[in-house]
């Protein structure tokens, strides 16, 4: 089991980073970047999720195989959700049943 102790300072820094990224997401939404608005928002969201998983959920400090299996399964399921939903959204114009 991982017994790595993370200093409180790290937690505060990550929390402040998350808050800053939230403000940036909101601010960027008011700038018209065309379709890049979505890309920027999703990229920031991914970065935030990564910070949470690595530091708050201790994935950075674990060598447990099971933790990695859990993360990979979660990502795989997300891919399933997106990929199969896209069979609908990608082909909407091709007609409905």
């Amino acid at each position, binding site marked *: 089991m991982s017994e790595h102790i993370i200093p409180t300072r790290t937690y505060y820094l990550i929390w402040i980073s998350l808050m800053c990224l939230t403000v940036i997401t909101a601010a960027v939404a008011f700038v018209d970047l065309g379709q890049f608005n979505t890309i920027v928002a999703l990229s920031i969201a991914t970065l935030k999720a990564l910070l949470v998983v690595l530091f708050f959920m201790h994935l950075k400090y674990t060598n447990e195989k*099971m933790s990695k299996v859990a993360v990979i*399964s*979660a990502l795989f*399921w997300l891919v*399933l*959700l997106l990929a*199969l*939903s896209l*069979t*609908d*959204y*990608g*082909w*909407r*114009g*091709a*007609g*409905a*049943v």
Partner: protein
Amino acid sequence: MSSVAITPEREHYLNKEYGISSWLLTTDHKRIALLYLVSITFFFFIGGFFALLIRLELLTPAGDLVQADTYNKLFTMHGQTMIFFFLIPSIPAVLGNFLVPMMIGAKDLAFPRINLLSWYLYIIAGIIYLHCILTGGVDVGWTFYTPLSSGFSNTKVIEAGVAVFINGFSSILTGLNFVVTIHRMRAPGMTWSRLPLFIWSHYATSIIMLLGTPVLAITLLLVVFERAFGLGIFDPTRGGDPLLFQHLFWFYSHPAVYIMILPSMGVISEVVPCFSRKRIFGYHFVALASIAIAVIGFLVWAHHMFVAGMSLYAALIFSLLSYLVAVPSAIKVFNWTATMYKGSISFSTPMLYAFGFIGLFTMGGLTGLFLAALGIDVHVTDTYFVIAHFHYIMVGGAVMGYLAGMHFWWPKISGRIYPEGWGRLAALIVFIGFNLTFFPQFVLGYVGMPRRYWQYSQEFQVLNVLSTAGSTVLAVGYLLPMVYFLWSMRYGKLADDNPWNATGLEWRTASPPPTYNFDETPVVTWEAYDYENMPLPQEVTLER
């Protein structure tokens, strides 16, 4: 919940401590299972009450018992209560909580306090939902479809959504507890291929709970945000997409059907070998079929949306995948049947329910294939055919399995034997009542009666009367076990440790079990379902 003094000289989990706080602050998985048993039984009767009102309204073609608006609330609250507050927690939270640690030779679940927390979350969600019911109710269907739920309904959608959201966390915590327990706390010698199939099915169920429930939670939160703050997520007038809600909702809610049925399959996999006195046929196939159902079950959700306007390409893919998920279920049915072949079968109550399960689940599953076929689905979508289909799975399958399990393990849970004659009678009544209620609905749907209407054309009346009559028979069948289980807690014959001469570890400790389940940690040196080397139970010997 009052404790039952059974053998005052021996201490067990029921008589170790007394008083309300010993129950409300317990971390014993067996006591938490009983807390769940009382709570879900309460919600079962609330949901059942709504069902009876629905059937009473449909006794006559005219909408004469309740107003249309009230009827919308009745079927919504029937569905939400039964699914979120009874079926999903039923077997995992009651029998799973009680049995998972015992079956693998552990003293408790991995996180006993989280286990208690999950019950409290369930109760908080239940209280919020009860408040919703008592202060006006909700009418959007159990599916919360947008934009009705996010914009147009003027009932208590937010409250119901919050209740289901909180309840989801109870489910996630139970799933997490089971996964960690099964990985980490197996007794020496309890290898993965010696695990009882009940454990395999609970493992598969837990995976679904962990990976699916968060999606439902966030989706309902988005509905609440759209409704409360006007965010444009699902509302097309604000740039949203209503079908996005259906994709996200069914990504959880189709696998949720497997949360209901997989644990039931686990029960049947325990009951069939025991009452056939045979090792289960194809152990590894049945075990891996559970995992296959959990995985493939996530790939079929959009078959609920064939007529919703999604792309033809998606419909073809989801139709194909929906056929695929029938394969592991069929493997299980064939293997249970093969287990019985040349077995020494006895017709005890749990086995009667198991027979009921196999027959009714097969009918429910096969009619599911009708619905996976695009052409037939267009014809029967939103008709009573669909209602009959999923009740054959959820009631004919899941509830039958739950009752099989309750009867099978009641001697272990309570230390008493229930009256066998009454048990068999109740099983028969449930089977007859169930078929009388739901078989006519297949016909009704096929000839065109739509679901979710409080009045209907004259030509549908005969079948509706049959269905309503069946529901009253079914109600009697469900009340009986509750009465004789309660009766047996005081007056039932004392059960010995292993009244069925079953092979599982849970039968190798006392009935009722001591607080830490086993006096010494068991060491497993035998395969699962080793019935060839077990003597017949006394009752079976007498019958033969």
